[in-house]
């Protein structure tokens, strides 16, 4: 065993010396490698962070949401539905919700207007999310004007802003009083946007949901678990898409690695010939070449990963902001909770180090089996 380690230490000595002699080329490969790992790891850490964030919110979201469908389109739910659902066994609490979207033509941004179920908002006042406060430079006590769908300009006083640490869920919220909401949108008095229900026994959610579906045949019943699964699948699918898009980059990188390993200069071939002539065995040469790849790829992997960690958790994935923002004007400021997941790290490893290793096996073998007598010819 000692001999094993001692031999590999010697081989590493030689590997590093020979990497150093071709510094330019190896640094180039190293830089590309770091960049690739950095991008893949950033995407992966970011999607995972957002996914966990979405999960955390969903876990505290209503257990059942009931929407009404007419011709496949959403329609406000009659207030009578609340009573109908309350009558179903196993239901703990039912509440009609009022919420909707408002397009701010001046800012070209979408807001979410909502009547908070838990806190009273005075008539003529609004509580706004951190994103809107920043976008329109509003603070408590300021006046804000919204244009109602019928053309009226409605004036509100900002009575408060939501905690800036919660921007990830509340950046675009405008909370107002029920009367103001109905008056602003001209929302019928006997309707709600949708209805939420909570269930006494969490195990019964499915049963209760099917009873609601039976009682209100036109309703679309969405359970929390459905949302959770859909989110999960959606994030995975998006991650998969990104991986497919980036696989082009991975492929280009693999070609680069292959080319580097296969395109031995006459000098390098002579060097391997000399090593074999002075008593190195083919497996020694393979081991040296293996170390070459291992040192470069491990170092690049670790460096790319650490950089990605800093990027995502200290700079909130600043480089991805344009992509996530899209055409949106409102973009929340957020700090993701740092969580590292072995599966992600292993997946990135599989996408980078493994193809690199595979791409270099054959060229390495070709190089290592050079005739030892080449140096004499």
């Amino acid at each position: 065993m000692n001999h094993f380690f001692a031999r590999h230490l010697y081989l590493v000595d030689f590997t590093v010396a020979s990497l150093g002699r071709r510094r330019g080329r190896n640094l180039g490969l190293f830089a590309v490698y770091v960049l690739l790992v950095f991008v893949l790891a950033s995407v992966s850490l970011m999607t995972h962070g957002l996914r966990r964030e979405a999960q955390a919110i969903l876990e505290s979201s209503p257990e059942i949401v009931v929407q009404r469908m007419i011709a496949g389109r959403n329609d406000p739910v009659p207030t009578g539905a609340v009573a109908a659902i309350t009558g179903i066994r196993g239901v703990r609490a039912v509440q009609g919700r009022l919420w909707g979207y408002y397009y701010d033509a001046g800012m070209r941004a979408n807001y979410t207007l909502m009547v908070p179920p838990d806190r009273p908002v005075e008539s003529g006042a609004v509580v706004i999310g951190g994103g809107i406060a920043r976008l329109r430079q509003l603070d408590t006590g300021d006046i804000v004007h919204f244009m109602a769908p019928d053309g009226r300009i409605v004036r509100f006083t900002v009575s408060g802003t939501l905690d800036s640490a919660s921007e990830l869920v509340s950046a675009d919220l405008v909370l107002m009083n029920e009367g103001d909401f109905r008056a602003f949108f001209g929302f019928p008095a006997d309707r709600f946007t949708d209805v939420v229900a909570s269930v006494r026994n969490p195990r019964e959610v499915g049963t209760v949901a099917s009873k609601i579906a039976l009682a209100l045949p036109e309703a679309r019943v969405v359970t929390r678990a459905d949302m959770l699964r859909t989110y999960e699948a959606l994030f995975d699918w998006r991650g998969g898409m990104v991986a497919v898009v980036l696989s082009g980059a991975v492929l280009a990188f693999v070609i680069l690695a292959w080319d580097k390993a296969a395109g031995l200069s006459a000098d390098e071939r002579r060097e391997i010939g000399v090593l074999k002539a002075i008593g190195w065995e083919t497996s020694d040469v393979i081991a040296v070449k293996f170390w070459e790849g291992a040192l470069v790829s491990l170092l690049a992997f670790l460096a790319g990963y650490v950089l990605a960690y800093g990027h995502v958790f200290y700079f909130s994935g600043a480089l991805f902001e344009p992509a996530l923002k899209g055409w949106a004007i409102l973009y929340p400021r957020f700090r993701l909770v740092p969580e590292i997941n072995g599966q992600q790290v292993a997946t990135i490893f599989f996408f980078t180090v493994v193809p690199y290793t595979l791409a270099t096996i054959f060229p390495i073998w070709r190089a290592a089996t050079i005739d030892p007598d080449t140096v004499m010819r």
Partner: protein
Amino acid sequence: MNKHLRLSTTSLSVLAVALAAALATLVDAALRFDSEALARRNRAALAETLQLSDLSLFTEARYTRHPALADLHSAFQDHPAALDHFPSAAWMPPTRWHEKQP
């Protein structure tokens, strides 16, 4: 006596430092987790009281704001080039009608 540092020693030390940095991210994550997770719990609490179900990350269109409760899952609702959030929509580009206008 042996003042010559072996290359294997230096290079494996560099590797060890990189590994330590990678492990340090785990420690950093654990250290920051408590404070950040508190913020997350606050967010979740707000979401609970307001009965929210989605992140306010994608506000470009109505249906991207609340994917879990979208009123209708189809493209072109707010912008002719707005991407649907469903997998299949990513494959089919929107019609580029605006380029044909004079």
